């Protein structure tokens, strides 16, 4: 395997000698990992500003406002006399929700009746809407349940009987994994996997485009040994990156990490191989140094929403989901998320693991084929470099 060692060393030299490639294959991997989590670092959106319209001004209405304000998701910021003024505050983006307490609120309840409070929430931003609605519902529900239980106890029931009578079938929510519903924990671990894929594809494509521009000979002495040697170089480099991400970055930000090192490594192997061979196979499509950066940038956002963690795959058209499986990131993000954030075993991600092996083998064969048929040098200067083909997904 003389060609293997030479290809490994050549690739190392090419990357070391190219600032652009180093920026992508080393710099971007580090920078993005520290930069991308930034907006989500607070994890949970709390203290959504709320506005109160209290027409009752009674002890009970003030108690409700206090309970709302002490709820961690809500901060009562304004009190205005009319609903119109309250809505204007929401419209101006200064409040996320309104609580409207009617006149005779306390009197109605004292008499054993039922009073209706109005809750108006801003659905222009989904997270604000969800947090505000949860906060309102919990604060109001707590006060209402307390009053109801006191009423039932007054009829002679024991506290336990009163609770059972009030809600015979209580629903207990037991969140598994990410119980606080942290936003960074939800998004960033998967995006890290995508960063590994995109930087690898861009780095390999950038070097191939540069070689093509310089019309360097891309033929390898031995296509098989050469392809394996180049892949071995990228595998070594990205094994370090993967270790860094799953060993250090995930812990640095305090994301859930239940994955066992051996299991993660066993899953990372086919993922990295699939990405590397895809990069090598696609490298013939890039005839310019910058084309890979441009083309891959277009795929990042669709790849995130096709991966299934932010948008359920059941809601994606079946044909599109199947096409998306050709991207190593689709099974890769799903598998890593379940291994590291949900503590799954390797056998519990066997579907994704097998898909990645199939992709790795298929892209390896393609890369080998491409290496065995080096592109023909094209004549002419910049003006006649006209065979820019569409890069593959």
């Amino acid at each position: 395997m003389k060609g293997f060692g030479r290809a490994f060393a050549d690739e190392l030299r090419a990357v070391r000698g190219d600032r652009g490639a180093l920026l992508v294959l080393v710099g971007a991997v580090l920078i993005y990992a520290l930069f991308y989590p930034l907006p989500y670092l607070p994890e949970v959106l709390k203290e959504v500003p709320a506005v109160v319209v209290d027409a009752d001004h009674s002890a009970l209405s003030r108690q409700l406002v206090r309970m709302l304000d002490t709820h961690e998701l809500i901060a009562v910021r304004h009190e205005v006399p009319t609903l119109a003024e309250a809505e204007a505050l929401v419209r101006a983006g200064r409040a996320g929700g309104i609580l409207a307490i009617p006149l005779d609120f306390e009197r109605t309840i004292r008499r054993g009746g039922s009073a209706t409070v109005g809750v108006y929430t801003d659905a222009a931003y989904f997270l604000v809407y969800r947090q505000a609605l949860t906060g309102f519902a919990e604060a109001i529900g707590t006060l209402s349940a307390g009053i109801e239980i006191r009423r039932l106890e007054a009829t002679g029931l024991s506290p336990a009987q009163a609770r059972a009578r009030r809600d015979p079938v209580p629903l207990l929510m037991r969140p598994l994994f990410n119980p606080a519903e942290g936003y960074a924990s939800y998004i960033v671990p998967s995006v890290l996997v995508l960063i590994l894929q995109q930087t690898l594809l861009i780095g390999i494509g950038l070097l191939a485009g540069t070689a093509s521009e310089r019309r360097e000979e891309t033929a390898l002495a031995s296509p098989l040994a050469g392809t394996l040697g180049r892949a071995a170089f990228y595998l070594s480099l990205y094994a370090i990156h993967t270790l860094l991400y799953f060993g250090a970055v995930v812990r640095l930000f305090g994301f859930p990490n239940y994955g066992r090192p051996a299991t993660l490594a066993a899953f990372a192997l086919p993922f990295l191989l699939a990405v590397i061979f895809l990069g090598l196979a696609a490298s013939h499509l890039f005839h310019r140094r910058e084309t890979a950066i441009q083309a891959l940038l277009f795929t990042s956002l669709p790849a995130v929403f096709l991966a299934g963690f932010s948008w359920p795959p059941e809601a994606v058209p079946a044909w599109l989901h199947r096409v998306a499986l050709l991207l190593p990131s689709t099974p890769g993000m799903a598998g890593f998320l379940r291994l590291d954030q949900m503590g799954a075993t390797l056998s519990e991600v066997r579907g994704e693991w097998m898909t990645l092996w199939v992709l790795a083998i298929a892209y390896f064969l393609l890369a080998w084929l491409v290496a065995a048929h080096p592109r023909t040098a094209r004549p002419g200067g910049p003006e006649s470099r006209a065979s820019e083909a569409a890069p593959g997904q």
Partner: protein
Amino acid sequence: MSERPGIRATVRREYRRMAAEPIYALLLVILPLVAFGVLWAIFWQGVPRELPVAVLDRDHTALSRQLVRMIDASPTMRVAFTVADETEGERLIREGRAYALVTIPVDFERAIRRGEAAPVICHHNAQLLLPASLIRRDLRGVVGTLSAGAELKRLQGGGTPRGVAMARIEPIRMERHTLFNPELSYLSYLLAALLPTMLQVFILVAAVQALGSELKDGTAADWLATAGGRTWKALTGKLLLTTVHFSLMGLAMVAVLFRELGLPLAGSFGAIIGATLLFVLAVEAVGIALVAWLANLRFATSAAAFLSGPAFAFSGITFPVAAMPLAAQTWSALIPLTHYLRVMVDQAMRGAPLAVSSLPLAALAAFVLLLPVASLGRLRRVATDERFWGRL
């Protein structure tokens, strides 16, 4: 054949370059259409439905079977698995085959008959936020209906004492009103943010390619000469065609969002049109600055990727800007997308007064005015100094 140098000649020259190099067809037409199409297809179905859940029925009575049927009949959930124990259910969740495990306890029906509480437990995958919140909402509805249902009263013998029945009236009822986006459609909400995110990518990449390739190919002197040596004319002539192209694409995007995808229009349509055109110019201004100051097509493209790739995360659509750390808020303000989406949400959904949108509109205008002014001299220098040409 020598044309009179100026903007018109520069536009002609740019048209010839774009026609000769397929990369422009790719960046201006093919990739944008594919990316728009794929995003549209992803969210085509709107709200996710029939998400698979597992059920562990430890009671096996008429009432427990009724609850299982009710869960299956809910729009969000489909009972895909009936499991024998919790271990099996939790494994299904870890395997990604079920989003939740609903456990109905032993003696469910009997406890209710006796007037005791019989809790239903829902283990769910909170790592996947969206399915988790949809399932929680629907399951609360289903179990709440059952809990309040006539079926239970019948089971409990119907003989509720009058005093208890009176007291059972819910003391405080919550009447829910949704302000703005009342249908809560994910399709219109997410696409209204994602399509502009992609548009920013298209514009920025194309502007950097158009300008940066002059330096890389060493044709910058010819470009300036075609414009009669005036940098502002050279810039205008160079970007005129792509500006028109992306303005039309932006307007088409707005038309699709409002006419095809049912985005509500509560406020000023004029402000949205104006913001769209300013947005195109603002992103091009960022492209001008990147090429002028980095003077390297590859490096400027990398920087464009860094700016526009994670821009959605910083835009405040998923996680509000006000709740971000200061560093993220600052970065967010430096991206045109943030300001554009703010106008979009305020005008389309909230129907905010124009004064609310004047700040983000002014921010977009600031990009358009300040960045080219700050970059023109530098651009002239790198375009005339051969040392800045052909840099990789």
